[in-house]
């Protein structure tokens, strides 16, 4: 299929993009990596009349060290996220999860910011953003604001980013020395996650000192598994404590039923995969 017609602007700066989006109103759409948007346009599931392309805005790309946090430009591609040494060191969970996104070609084009704002509940980067306590930096006509990842996702395919706003940066507090694992469950390699678990933990003297766990596709937005985290902290890092903690994984979730999985199966998977993710993240022999 061929998309319907639209006007196109390759914005050269964030200000120009925001200006163009303000003018376009509801008919405008941001083109980031385009790996979800272009198929949607081709199937004519959306027919915006104005596309504002961010690919030429170089300031939106790249990763920088900002003291106690690393800052990832929204237009940094998945491929660059995976290969970035700062992210590997301080936000390993994001690096691991990004490796499972789409396929190599999609990872060359798709971007972190695009994936977060698209907010597909089955998308693999939402839960890591929540687990890592990321902060989203948003720019609009009214200026700049920062929103915690936990507040960022509003509903299916909906975030707090307004139609005339842009996500420009993702700030991630450094987690040096944390173990991490992203456990993804899908039908085939290309498919979206049925359920996935993002887990990162800091062990200290054989015990779990800190733990962050978030779930992909267990509700309309990513779910922080606080019950699991609380059950783990201060416990010895063993298979038994991890499995006991993982029993809390499906708490406060509201998974959907679809052709691949019904809600009760997703709840079951959340528990099993949480145990596996934590075991791997904590480096515990299973």
């Amino acid at each position: 299929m061929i998309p319907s017609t639209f006007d196109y602007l390759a914005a050269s700066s964030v200000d120009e993009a925001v200006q163009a989006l303000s003018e376009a109103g509801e008919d405008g759409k941001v083109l980031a990596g385009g790996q979800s948007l272009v198929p949607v346009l081709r199937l004519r599931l959306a027919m915006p009349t104005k596309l504002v392309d961010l690919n030429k805005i170089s300031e939106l790309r790249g990763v920088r060290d900002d003291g106690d946090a690393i800052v990832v430009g929204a237009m940094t591609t998945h491929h660059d996220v995976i290969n970035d040494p700062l992210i590997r060191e301080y936000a390993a969970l994001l690096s691991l999860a990004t490796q499972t996104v789409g396929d190599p070609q999609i990872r060359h084009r798709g971007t972190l910011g695009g994936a977060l704002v698209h907010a597909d509940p089955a998308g693999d980067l939402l839960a890591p953003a929540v687990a890592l306590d990321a902060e989203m930096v948003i720019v609009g006509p009214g200026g700049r604001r920062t929103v915690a990842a936990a507040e960022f996702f509003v509903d299916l395919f909906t975030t707090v980013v307004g139609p005339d706003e842009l996500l420009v940066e993702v700030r991630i507090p450094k987690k040096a020395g944390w173990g991490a694992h992203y456990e993804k469950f899908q039908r085939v390699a290309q498919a979206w996650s049925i359920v996935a678990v993002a887990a990162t933990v800091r062990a200290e003297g054989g015990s779990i000192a800190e733990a962050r766990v978030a779930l992909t596709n267990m509700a309309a937005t990513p779910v922080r598994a606080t019950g699991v985290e609380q059950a783990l902290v201060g416990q010895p890092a063993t298979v038994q404590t991890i499995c006991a903690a993982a029993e809390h994984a499906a708490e406060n979730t509201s998974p959907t039923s679809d052709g691949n999985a019904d809600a009760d199966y997703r709840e079951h998977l959340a528990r099993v995969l949480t145990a596996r993710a934590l075991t791997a993240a904590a480096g515990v022999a299973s």
Partner: protein
Amino acid sequence: MTRISVMVDGVSYVDDVEPRTLLVHYLRERLGKTGTVVGCDTSNCGACTVHLDGRSVKSCSVFAVQVDGSEITTIEGLIRDGNLHPMQQAFHDNHALQCGYCTPGMIMQAIDLLGDDPNPDEQTVREGLEGNLCRCTGYQNIVRAVLDAAEKMKPAVRAQQPSTVAGGGN
């Protein structure tokens, strides 16, 4: 209409395109590069894979207006001095194609894969090709071909890699 300037398989082109024109349609319909094909509308099949500034992309998920100022290599730009690219040769030698529809995309992605990892094992190859569907071969000979090409490209691959991957045509 938007004016773009683009280098495709070593030749520069300046064209006015509709913003909605997909790169793959620009390649096929404006430039006659029919070697690159369309297999789906959801970016699952990978048949349209080309190299954009040295990296593999699905040309059905990029608009032609977006490649202004870029360099593109298609399956038609791989032959050098009349010689097949080692990956093309390996696909032939290992019977890695049947109907051949997925082959251009498969070869372009396989070359990119070796750019990332010149010495992959079987599982790495399989995962590196996860975005390319083939309905004929069951993939076994494709995997074999990529491993074979990796072996044959070894001595030269690091030195030649940038020019091998990007640009240039016969």
